[in-house]
């Protein structure tokens, strides 16, 4: 989706702030959110946690911290999957606000307690073995990125759309992770495509700079228009 998360090339965010000796988590709740999400990865199916993060309203996305976005999106997924209701969540939130010393239950390590991992497992991500898939492009081919605007999850950032690059590497096939029609789902060759800085940023590009990005085959077309027909 054409959201604010797609920020490659944007101006205005200022200097990069580096924290020396940064802790893994700045507050314990961050680790617990991360761990809960990792324990129930399938809650975010079929498009993954990132789609829920990208679906946060742009103004809220920009003013939330990294793990706040994880929390907002996890909550959204739990509600949409029917694992929690808004009423019980609000009631429990009120309880912990009014009883700040109340402990979170630990639960019993019974078979039931492994329910989440069984019902909401991680989807298989390992690349496809590629059998029967013949890559359309070869290393060194000139390719143009399609002007594709999907109102859903996509791995195609705006800043490379319509740009011309060169195939640098051919990777193992991966399932397309975008919101595409059922008939277009499944594994595709993935290429590392190289772009000259000037192709992306025009005269403002810095000297001697290239960019590489992974492109699923359906993002690409031959650059020279019809030569491969």
């Amino acid at each position, binding site marked *: 989706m054409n959201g604010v998360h797609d920020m490659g090339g944007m101006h205005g965010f200022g200097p990069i702030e580096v924290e020396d000796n940064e802790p893994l988590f700045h507050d314990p*709740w961050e680790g617990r959110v991360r761990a809960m999400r990792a324990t129930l990865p399938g809650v975010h199916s079929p498009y993954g946690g990132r789609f829920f993060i990208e679906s946060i309203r742009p103004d809220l996305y920009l003013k939330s911290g990294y793990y706040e976005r994880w929390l907002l999106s996890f909550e959204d997924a739990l509600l949409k999957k029917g*694992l929690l209701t808004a009423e019980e969540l609000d009631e429990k939130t009120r309880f912990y606000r009014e009883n700040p010393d109340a402990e979170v239950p630990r639960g019993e390590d019974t078979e039931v307690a492994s329910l989440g991992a069984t019902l909401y497992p991680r989807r298989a991500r390992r690349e496809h073995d590629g059998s029967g898939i013949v890559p359309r492009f070869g290393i060194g081919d000139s390719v143009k990125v399609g002007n594709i605007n999907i109102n859903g999850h996509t791995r195609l950032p705006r800043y490379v759309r319509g740009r011309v690059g060169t195939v640098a590497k051919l990777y193992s096939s991966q399932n397309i992770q975008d919101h595409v029609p059922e008939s277009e789902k499944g594994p595709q060759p993935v290429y590392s495509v190289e772009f000259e800085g000037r192709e992306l940023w025009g005269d403002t590009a810095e000297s001697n700079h290239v960019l590489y990005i992974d492109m699923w085959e359906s993002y690409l077309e031959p650059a020279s228009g019809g030569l491969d027909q």
Partner: protein
Amino acid sequence: MSGQHHRETEPYAAIRTKAIESLLIEKGLFTGDAIDAQIQAYEKDIGPMNGAKVVARAWVDSGYRERLLVNGREAISEMGFADTQGAELVVLENTPAVQNVVVCTLCSCYPWSVLGLPPTWYKSFAYRSRVVIEPRKVLKEFGLELDDSVEVRVWDSNSDVRYMILPKRPDGTENMSEDELVELVSRDSMVGVAQAKSPAQVS
């Protein structure tokens, strides 16, 4: 969670997290122990020390270096590091002529199996937006000023492939052991925004 004495100032996110964890445990989806174990894994099992060992091995063993550059996933498994992300691991070598640097403009993809969880700056809007359009300026902010003759290659990590940088071995380290070399390999040098440290910087 451990007892704290200023709970009345708990942020909303902390309270909300307790509410969610409490409800999911009551429903039997996981236990508090399972969540603790996951956090422990982040704290103890993964981190940039794994990547530093891989880099130091590649510096002293040219056969290992070749294998690492050809198939990162298999090469790190030789060192006992499992690839938990199920993604291809591509290792890119920095040289006097080429500086590779990694970003995930859309989110926060990062090679956990060798570097652990990413630092906040890697996930920041400033880094994600800027390093693809003005990488030299960004690297300069990190203290890395590059001659115009050095090609800067930025890798936007947007698929299941993960990227790690093999930094240049610093000068004056010919007589150092593999274990000593590990100390020179900073996290930032494996993302590509810094060079490995010189022996003088760590002594």
